[in-house]
């Protein structure tokens, strides 16, 4: 393992984050806070409790999940897309490092940033709603695992994308709808049984459900299923990254 190389990529990516603090940290925190204000404090006070949890508290895990997914994907995809776009990728490709080290640097930095963001939002939420965390270790594990998993997906997207538009398509057109329909704002028990069945096809349901379980001990699907699905995604995306480097897809002619 080439420690200095991994560190160089990691630090480079983290420096990019600090340089764009407003966009990379402030924006997601503010937009999530808006949800807390509108759905948590304002509308939430008129809503009945779900599974014994106040509505404002109920939506916190889902909203953090939304941020984690969006930010992991956009960070990791941007991180690897920019060098391709500007041409500086030549240096990474010509460096004496393996693909594992390249991925460790880029995905590690993107995941780190998502975890930090998740924690900031968690703290921010305390200003708007009361909530509890019953299983903090599980909560943190889900936070980290989801960040890593979707940073891998972001890395794949960043390599696949050949324009800025494609970078936006997956987070905006696929991830956002899946999160909104994945039980972020409601328990899937509240849906008619047919739609409950359909909803179970949405992979994000398992992520949100597991994450919410770590907060309140209640979930739509069993925690073991959630954990299994999260690892399933990780394996899938890691496999995709492995295939990309194996074939040199869009990186090397």
């Amino acid at each position: 393992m080439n420690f200095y190389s991994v560190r160089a990529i990691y630090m480079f990516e983290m420096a990019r984050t600090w340089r764009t603090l407003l966009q990379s940290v402030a924006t997601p925190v503010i937009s999530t806070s808006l949800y807390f204000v509108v759905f948590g404090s304002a509308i939430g006070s008129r809503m009945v409790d779900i599974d014994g949890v106040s509505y404002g508290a109920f939506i916190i895990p889902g909203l953090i999940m939304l941020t984690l997914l969006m930010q992991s994907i956009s960070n990791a995809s941007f991180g690897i897309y920019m060098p391709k776009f500007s041409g500086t990728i030549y240096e990474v490709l010509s460096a004496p490092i393996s693909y594992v080290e390249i991925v460790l640097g880029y995905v590690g930095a993107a995941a780190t940033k998502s975890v930090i963001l998740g924690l900031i939002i968690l703290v921010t939420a305390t200003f708007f709603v009361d909530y509890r965390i019953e299983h903090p270790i599980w909560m943190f594990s889900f936070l980290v695992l989801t960040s890593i998993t979707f940073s891998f997906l972001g890395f794949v997207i960043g390599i696949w994308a050949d324009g800025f538009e494609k970078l936006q398509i997956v987070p905006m057109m696929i991830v956002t709808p899946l999160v909104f329909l994945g039980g972020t704002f409601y328990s899937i028990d509240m849906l008619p049984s047919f739609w409950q069945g359909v909803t179970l096809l949405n992979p994000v349901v398992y992520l949100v459900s597991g994450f919410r379980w770590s907060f309140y001990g209640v979930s739509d699907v069993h925690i073991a299923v959630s954990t299994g699905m999260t690892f399933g995604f990780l394996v899938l995306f890691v496999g995709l990254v492995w295939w990309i480097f194996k074939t040199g897809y869009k990186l090397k002619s």
Partner: protein
Amino acid sequence: MPPIISVQGLNKTYASGFEALKNLDLDINTGEIFALLGPNGAGKTTLISIICGIANPTRGTVTADGHDILTDFRQARAKIGLVPQELATDAFETVWATVNFSRGLFGKAPNPEHLEKILRQLSLWDKRDSKIKALSGGMKRRVMIAKALSHEPKILFLDEPTAGVDVELRRDMWEMVRGLREQGVTIILTTHYIEEAEEMADRIGVISQGEIILVEEKTALMRKLGKKQLTLSLRDPLSKVPESLASMPLTLSEDGRELNYNFDSQQEHSGISELLKELDSQGVEFRDLRTRESSLEDIFVGLVHGQ
């Protein structure tokens, strides 16, 4: 001493079916400055990209300092620095940060003294805290060279280093390249400027349509190319070259009206004045005289088109 870079039977066919390199063999000697000349699309950049790990070879082997570039890529690539043709820099980084990044990326422990030395050599020290986007094109080119040198490579590739660079920077760059060679760095540069190859290189290779068509010591090449021809148009045709001039490299045209004399313009003593004195004493008069020399450029164009 074994060659520092050895390319054997290298073949590159792109997905489009275009064959960029055809069974290319090339050895680069340790410590030399090697100039790779060739027209656009000849395969110069493809060759460099493969050696540096940016493109995959279709067939063939390459070793750098004895390490195979595929099976032993860590060792091989650690030895190589690359300055690509395109100006590609991280616009928002400072000069210092980007050079530091490059050193780390190549697996070297931080060494601020070394980086300072490089930046000073390249007149970038004053700009170390500037963002790269604020620099001029020539300065950006220097930054790319600094990045390539940050990990103390034994081999440096300069792909068209002086394309679009002003005269002063070109002089500086030549100076720097010479300095690097004195430190034992092997330099491979590609260029369109024949003058540059002439000025810098120890050996010159010409690549055309994916094949190396010539590799020669520059001095040997210059000697060949340095040949000049003096043509004398005679007032009265001769039937043969006069006896007393037989030892000189003279040829007579078929009609006997032109006497051609080959000489070496690189030599101090061309023998022209002896020839003219002798002709005078023999009573051979001439109406006109002209000299012609083939430049490196002529030969280069001839080689490339003569295929």
